[in-house]
């Protein structure tokens, strides 16, 4: 059974701090790892990491995949109150049916206080 564990479960920081969120996984035939941000609504896509793309960056957010350690980190620098959200990590294997089933972690709830 595929498994995704995120840590910490929750985190409170002050504006301007840098945070690192962790995701570890166990999946058969790993294909990719995805990060999503969820505020009080639907998850929105941040990054996808694969064997051929183990680092991604967008503005103050960056993510690295460590295939040897079966883990990934999501870094947010110079945090802002708008970064407050639940951050979800998901992984998926190759699927015989051709669709792409994701297994999600329970998320890390980040609260950024002024």
């Amino acid at each position, binding site marked *: 059974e595929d498994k995704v564990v995120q840590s910490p479960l929750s985190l409170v920081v002050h504006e301007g701090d840098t945070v690192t969120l962790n995701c570890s996984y166990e999946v058969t035939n790993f294909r990719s790892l995805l990060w999503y941000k969820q505020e009080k609504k639907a*998850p929105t896509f941040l990054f996808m990491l694969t064997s051929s793309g183990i680092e991604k960056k967008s503005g103050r957010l960056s993510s690295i995949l460590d295939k040897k350690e079966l883990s990934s980190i999501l870094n947010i620098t110079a945090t802002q109150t708008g970064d407050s959200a639940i951050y979800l990590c998901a992984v998926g294997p190759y699927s015989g049916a051709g669709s792409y089933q994701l297994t999600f972690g329970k998320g890390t709830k980040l609260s950024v206080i002024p």
Partner: protein
Amino acid sequence: DAGITQSPRHKVTETGTPVTLRCHQTENHRYMYWYRQDPGHGLRLIHYSYGVKDTDKGEVSDGYSVSRSKTEDFLLTLESATSSQTSVYFCAISGLAGGSTDTQYFGPGTRLTVL
């Protein structure tokens, strides 16, 4: 905006009644998914579809059925709703022709309460 809508957005129903949730997409994605999200469990896959009339079960499919008679619509049915099915339901899509099949885009969600 991935062009995905869900209806209804909120529903309150009684135990034992049938309920159908609709997911509609406008961009011809091949794959469609239904998830439920509950505190302490995160997002869990209920059913998914890899084409018209092609569907399969996910992790938590008991008590749910789905149908996809055309590319743009994916229906989730609770045949006889129970209180344990109170949840927020998300539809997701992926597999736009010529694009990545891996990245899933989520609809706005349906909050279902079963009394």
